[in-house]
């Protein structure tokens, strides 16, 4: 097992390199296709060519290969890798450093990622907790009595969540929950501010660093929550007929325990995969939810970088995400072995 982990960790290297290359290639092709992203900084006004050239060269976007469609710009990639190897992730178009690890400890070295990461970690934790707990719980309840009203109401409500695009959902929640209901709460004297302004605030607030992330976290977790719930339901439903469940019943265990321990544990294997995946999926979601709820996290920065076409930011953020994702995945794979002892890794 130890060797398995070491081997997986070693595999991180090609994966990270692969992802970096993929990303490098995508951003390069992006620039090759859409032209110099700096141009867009000036909006409808056409900048002086000299200014444009100066900015372009300062941001290393003046490499001629960026003008040749389809050229993978391997030279640039190599330079980039060397820089990254020295923990230099470059700057954004406004010359803010993308990543400086000292920024975690010292404001003087603040960087885009170190500023944004704490928010995203918090929101992810909230989303994950909600997804895992609520998703598994309602999935389990629905799976216990398939075809009953609870099953259908879970089904219908998850379908609503799934089929309505996230940004629509986020906007609706913002309108009806944080604005209308929130305003009602804020009208009540007796409700503590942390609830009325924090939890039910329309946007992230410094004063309530955790409370005001709860609703964005819920929105973030919602999409994969639906999947988790459905997956759990199916899985529980399938395992309900297993012989060992019958044994558990014969042991005189309560229905709750029969389902909650004996059935659930076996049902969690596909669910665990999904949970692991959703950590990666949160990033896509965070781009939207963080923007809607004004959380200054990684998603927000990614969105900005995507639309401004800032390769350095994208690569910096994604390198970090890839690592997070890979670790999460490795944990899921190891979790398999915990959940299902029959699986062995050698």
């Amino acid at each position: 097992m130890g060797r398995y982990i070491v081997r997986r960790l070693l595999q991180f290297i090609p994966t990270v390199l692969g992802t970096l290359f993929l990303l490098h290639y995508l951003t390069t092709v992006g620039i090759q296709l859409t032209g110099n992203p700096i141009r867009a900084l000036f909006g409808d006004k056409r900048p002086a060519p000299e200014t444009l050239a100066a900015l372009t060269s300062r941001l290393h976007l003046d490499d001629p290969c960026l003008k040749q469609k389809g050229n993978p710009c391997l030279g640039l990639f190599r330079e980039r890798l060397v820089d990254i190897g020295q923990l230099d992730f470059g700057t954004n178009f406004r010359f803010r450093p993308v990543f400086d690890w000292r920024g975690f400890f010292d404001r003087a070295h603040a960087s885009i990622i170190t500023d944004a990461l704490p928010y995203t970690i918090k929101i992810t934790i909230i989303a994950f907790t909600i997804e895992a707990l609520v998703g598994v719980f309602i999935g389990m309840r629905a799976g216990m009595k398939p075809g009953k009203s609870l099953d259908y109401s879970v089904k219908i409500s998850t379908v609503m969540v799934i089929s309505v695009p996230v940004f629509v959902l986020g906007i609706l929640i913002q309108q009806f929950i944080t604005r209308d209901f929130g305003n009602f709460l804020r009208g009540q004297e007796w409700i503590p501010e942390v609830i009325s302004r924090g939890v039910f605030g329309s946007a992230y607030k410094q004063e309530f660093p955790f409370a005001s992330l709860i609703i964005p976290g819920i929105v973030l977790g919602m999409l994969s929550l639906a999947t988790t719930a459905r997956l759990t339901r199916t899985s529980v439903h399938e395992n309900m007929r297993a012989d060992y469940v019958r044994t558990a019943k014969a042991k005189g265990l309560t229905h709750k325990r029969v389902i909650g321990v004996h059935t659930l544990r076996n049902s969690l294997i596909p669910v665990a995969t999904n949970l692991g995946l959703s950590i990666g999926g949160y990033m896509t979601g965070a781009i939207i939810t963080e923007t809607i709820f004004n959380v200054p996290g990684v998603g927000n920065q990614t969105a900005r970088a995507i639309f401004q076409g800032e390769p350095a930011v994208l690569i910096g953020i994604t390198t970090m995400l890839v690592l997070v994702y890979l670790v999460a995945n490795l944990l899921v794979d190891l979790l398999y072995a915990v959940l299902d002892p029959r699986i062995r890794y050698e």
Partner: protein
Amino acid sequence: MTDVVLETRDLVKYFPLTRGILLKKKIGDVKAVDGINIQLARGETLGVVGESGCGKSTLAKLLVGLEKPTSGSIVVRGKDISKLSGEATRKARRNIQLVMQDPYTSLNPRMTVGDIVAEPFQIHPDVAPKGAIRGRVQELIDLVGLNPDHINRYPHQFSGGQRQRIGIARALALKPEIILCDEPVSALDVSIQAQVMNLLDELQRELGLSYIFIAHDLSVVRHIADRVAVMYLGKIVEIGSDIQIYEQPTHPYTQALLSAVPVPDPTLRGHRDQIVLQGDVPSPANPPSGCRFRTRCWKAQEICATQEPLLEIRQKSAHPSACHFAEVRDVIHATQ
């Protein structure tokens, strides 16, 4: 022996033994099969008996290629099948079929019985023309005593014994030369068991099949086997013809085993001379030195701990026996 269809040479299978969930480390080997030499002649039935966990199923899996041997070879008609690969393995498998021990898990829950039994024909289309498959399947189902009505049912709709018969039908489909039966009748009631055994018998006579027949039920083995091998902790401790083993067992383990066989006669209750083994079954991960049975043997002496008894014909044993003190003792007919 003349017409040997299957032979194993020093067949060994170790399973790595690990501890811990996250950081598993290998702490040893389970010596499930540890140097087995058997020969199977054409038309012969070799019974294999032994304590549970002694490696019978592992041996069977090795023989059909479901596990890769740690060392040793399996020779079928002169070819070492454990060294074959790809298509050749698949071809070779046709000749040697397995009836699995567990009738509950060995049938695909999402296939009808008809499909399960038809599968061998589909895998090896040369056995039966497409149009004939249906008929053959019905024949087989019928042959093993199942209702052809049930051809469209799913395994979970059958009782354990019925499922076992489905497994047998599947193994018979290809008319293989060798059939490995891993406790094929232990889930069956005696009448069906009798049917199955008659069936196996008939098939053997007609087609010259060879069987390796693994069972706990010694009376069943006695009925069907020409020769019997007794296994203990991954090794064969005694091997001989059925008469030799049953009437003149020379290894203490065999004797203990035979004495424990329940007799379907309530009048003998409490009157039989049972040899009750003392001590625990040693772990196959850490078998005792020398003779593996010595920890539970009433005859054990110092030599047993130091020197491993070979499976050979001995002074007081007309057939190979792996005991330094091999000696005939009739346990079957003994009463108190």
